[in-house]
């Protein structure tokens, strides 16, 4: 896979420090599974955080001896080492990396797509634990030659290309590429090959559509 568009450093940093909303974190983690470059950036940021931790001034502990004693006392029963990882990696043979696979009801080939416009369909995914997470997460399918109506964003939009490709004002996005868009950007993606373009999209705030289709799409994306 030849990845040309990566996660922005500011977005990676929010992922590293745990402040990125879960819906957006799913997209970042799915890209990290296939992108050694971005994993290197995460490692760099965690090294920076580790350095800051080691260099910080020590606070005075109120109960150091007690803490140590409790750790040695309770500590020996071994927590099963990352037991969740023992679960078969791709339950549904989804063909997508695990951070996304864990949220898929079935394989990418069997998604019960819901039509939005001719040639454009979507499938909303649970956005977070108990659905309380901020933002939305969905799969989107664009048929060859079809266009997502022009829209702008009121927050951040992260798009990961899972199959096919699209082209917009910012460039050509192919399998594995990520489009990390801020609120000031307006665009109009067009699927530009003979295959369906399937992508994973997370937003932390509503999209704003303009033009003819806006009334049709606004109720779906403008939430």
């Amino acid at each position: 896979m030849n990845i040309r568009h990566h996660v922005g450093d500011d977005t990676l940093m929010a992922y590293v420090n745990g402040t990125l909303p879960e819906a957006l974190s799913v997209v970042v983690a799915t890209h990290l599974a296939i992108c050694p470059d971005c994993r290197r950036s995460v490692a760099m940021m965690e090294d920076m955080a580790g350095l800051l931790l080691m260099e910080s001034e020590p606070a005075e502990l109120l109960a150091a001896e007690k803490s140590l004693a409790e750790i040695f006392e309770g500590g020996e029963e071994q927590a099963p080492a990352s037991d969740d990882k023992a679960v078969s990696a791709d339950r549904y043979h989804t063909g997508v990396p695990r951070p996304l696979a864990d949220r898929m009801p079935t394989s990418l080939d069997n998604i019960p797509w819901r039509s939005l416009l001719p040639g454009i369909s979507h499938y909303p995914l649970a956005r977070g634990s108990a659905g309380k997470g901020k933002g939305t997460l969905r799969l989107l399918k664009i048929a060859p030659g079809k266009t997502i109506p022009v829209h702008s964003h009121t927050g951040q939009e992260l798009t990961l290309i899972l199959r096919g490709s699209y082209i917009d004002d910012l460039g050509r996005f192919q399998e594995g590429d990520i489009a990390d868009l801020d609120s000031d950007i307006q665009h109009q993606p067009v699927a530009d090959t003979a295959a369906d373009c399937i992508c994973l999209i997370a937003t932390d705030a509503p999209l704003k559509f303009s033009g003819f289709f806006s009334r049709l799409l606004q109720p779906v994306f403008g939430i």
Partner: protein
Amino acid sequence: MTSADGIRQDAAADKARSEELERDLLAVANTRDLQAFKRLFANFAPRLKFFLVKRGMTENTAEDVMQETMLKVWRKAMLFDGTKASASTWIYTIARNVRIDRLRKELRPEPDPNDPCFVPDDPETGEQAMSRKQDRERIRKAMSVLPPDQMTIIKMSFFEEKSHGEISSELNIPLGTVKSRMRLAFGKIRAELEVTS
């Protein structure tokens, strides 16, 4: 020498200390060495507490979370891989995850190296364990000379674990400025890492 922002330029002393902490962590992993763990605790527990209080926790909660973190260090030491992370980096990630588990309803999914879809590192970069150690020295060097306005944001983000939005309103600067200062800072550090030795 200590810079105003607390990243010292004394690379040799830092290297010695890092190596000592790593030896201790490996001793805990391999032989359940109590003395080594006590040294790790003496080093990290007070700093973890400082970090957690900075996050806005009360002293008692901070010590609770610190204890939970150090308990995980004790239990999971065998999972530490010195070729991938330094002791302080590894402990930072544990503390972060404990905090997320405690304070958050939201999850922070991570890639799984055992996933059949996982794309591993190039062998060329994977084998360079020594270069990872040099990387940390270069990161330190680059951080010690970051301009204060960039360093402030890096610290608020990593250390206080503030979101970009929180940083923007606290410093009273536009969100776009927060993000561009971050990109500038990381760009400088990455440039330092790309210098061939």
